[in-house]
């Protein structure tokens, strides 16, 4: 069962309702699992127009559902799994305002990853984009991350669509890792990482993280450092610093890890599956950036202070 992943450009709420509500109703009639994730402003309108047809529909405000792209993918995966044998139909509108360029890039990547993560799920997703307020950059992303467009009741083929691997490569090429001079450095000598953990834990608390967040960061750092020791080329090391928003840990080695652009984004089936480690790291911290080049492989972990 293939995925149907369509973008829908609208300018007024009424247009959204005219297209989305009959589509949602169709899902209810077909006994699909119907989910509505829209911004709070549109939620009540969708609910009102659906009326009694919406009694089995699940509603989530976008502001709550779209906080962290990798966690949102995990949550959608949970919905798809729980719904089986029914398929899922989701009206899915991410949040695009108040983001740093980095965050916007990761949410665009997320839209692209949907095509791989749910490729064989039979799910249908309709993603509304409010053209009246969204910057052109976001609309451009939408064109490159959705294989189809919805216009009224019609579905149009989208020639601008880019395969998620290519889109991911594009995102990765935008990553610039500049390290401030005041970053503290520790070398990583072996997979006995007790001292590195103690150091990161102490600095994390010193930079204002609470103990649970600090512990979680330590777990993530440990995993990335273990990978560097196992697969990287010495010297391996860790830098830590903070800016006005985040605490940042970067683990580097001298090797060249040409990672698949989908690595660690897609939820594994279980802890036994390859990729469980990096996927968990992505879940545990706010943002992971990975960059491999002539000077080595660098994995940067961001945690909001």
């Amino acid at each position, binding site marked *: 069962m293939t995925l149907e992943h369509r973008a829908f450009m609208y300018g007024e709420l009424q247009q959204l309702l005219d297209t989305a509500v009959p589509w949602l109703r169709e899902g209810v009639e077909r006994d699909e699992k119907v989910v509505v994730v829209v911004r709070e402003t549109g939620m009540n309108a969708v609910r009102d127009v659906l009326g009694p047809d919406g009694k089995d529909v699940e509603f989530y405000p976008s502001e709550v559902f779209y906080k962290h792209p990798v966690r949102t993918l*995990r949550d959608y995966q*949970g919905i798809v799994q729980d719904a089986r044998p029914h398929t899922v139909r989701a009206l899915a509108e991410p949040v695009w305002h108040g983001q740093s360029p980095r965050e916007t890039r990761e949410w665009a990547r997320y839209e692209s990853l949907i095509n791989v993560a749910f490729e064989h799920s039979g799910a249908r997703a309709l993603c509304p984009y409010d053209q009246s307020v969204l910057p052109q950059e976001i609309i451009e992303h939408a064109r490159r991350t959705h294989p189809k467009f919805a216009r009224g009741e019609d579905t149009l083929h989208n020639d601008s669509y880019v395969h998620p691997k290519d889109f991911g490569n594009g995102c990765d090429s935008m990553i610039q890792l500049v390290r401030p001079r005041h970053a503290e450095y520790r070398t990583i000598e*072996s*997979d*006995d*990482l*007790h001292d590195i*953990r103690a150091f990161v834990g102490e600095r994390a608390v010193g930079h204002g993280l609470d103990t*649970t967040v600090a*512990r*979680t960061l*330590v*777990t993530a750092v*440990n*995993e990335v450092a*273990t990978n560097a*020791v*196992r697969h990287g080329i010495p010297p391996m090391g860790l830098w830590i610093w903070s800016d006005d928003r985040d605490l940042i840990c970067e683990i580097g080695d001298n090797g060249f890890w040409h990672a698949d652009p989908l690595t660690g984004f897609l939820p*594994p089936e*279980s*802890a*036994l599956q390859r990729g*469980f*480690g990096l*996927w*968990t*790291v992505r*879940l*545990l911290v706010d943002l992971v950036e990975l960059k491999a080049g002539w000077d080595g492989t660098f994995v940067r972990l961001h945690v909001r202070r």
Partner: protein
Amino acid sequence: METLVSVRRPVRELRPGDHALLTFANDEEQRNVVGSFVRAGLAAGDKVIYLAETAHARVPGAPNPPPGRLSMVALDGFNGRSFQPRVVLDALVEEIRRAEDEGYGTIRVTADMTWAVRRPNGLELLLGSELRIEHAIAPSTSVIAICEYDRRHCSPEELGALHQAHGIVVVPDPEFEDSVLRIVRTFDPTGLALIGELDASRHMVLDGVLARLVSSINGSEIHLDLSGLGFIDLGAINMLADVAARRAGHGPLVLDRMSPQFRTVMETVGWHMLPGLRLSDDQ
């Protein structure tokens, strides 16, 4: 009631002058502790004195004892008088004197005295004798004693009184111990307790200990107590899932108590990431 803080000491750390109490949960725990005690003694050239039901009983840790180094004191040799704890303990003390005369530097004594608790007035008689033993051993520079009692056959009050009579509680030797991680066998329930920190540098150690445990227990449940684990890495979580998967069809791997760090990780990724693992109900 007088509060008593017993010193807990692994078998291998017992020293001459120690009069230690073992309250075992089952035969397996008894064999583990007594076996370590006897084995270490025979390996070091000590004298081992062992109280058994019969003179032909198998002694844990001594499949082929060197002649003369292991003395058995058999309960069935007392013709009914054995039911006086004092008579039996006198016989043990006599064996100790003989070993001293023979010039042994260290003399190890161990006796399962559960039967004595169950005699009329048993506990009272026993405590009197234990006091004599305590006074005889504490100043000794050669004798180490372990008094064994089966927890299943003693009331909490009796166990409390026995604790009062012994300065030291002996516990099993850790399966592994270094400055970062300690792995301890548990017997009630069957499993392991992990204390300290676990990262990739010690995966092989845990894998080895788990494999030994799995092969020794015939497919029953394995419980892991992780409450003392300050850190567990994602690779170790993967390993636990792997052990659970390999045991499909046998008793499950049960996580009894989790450290906060482990719980946070699992709540983030979802417990379904650990198929085959069971969480005990008390958490």
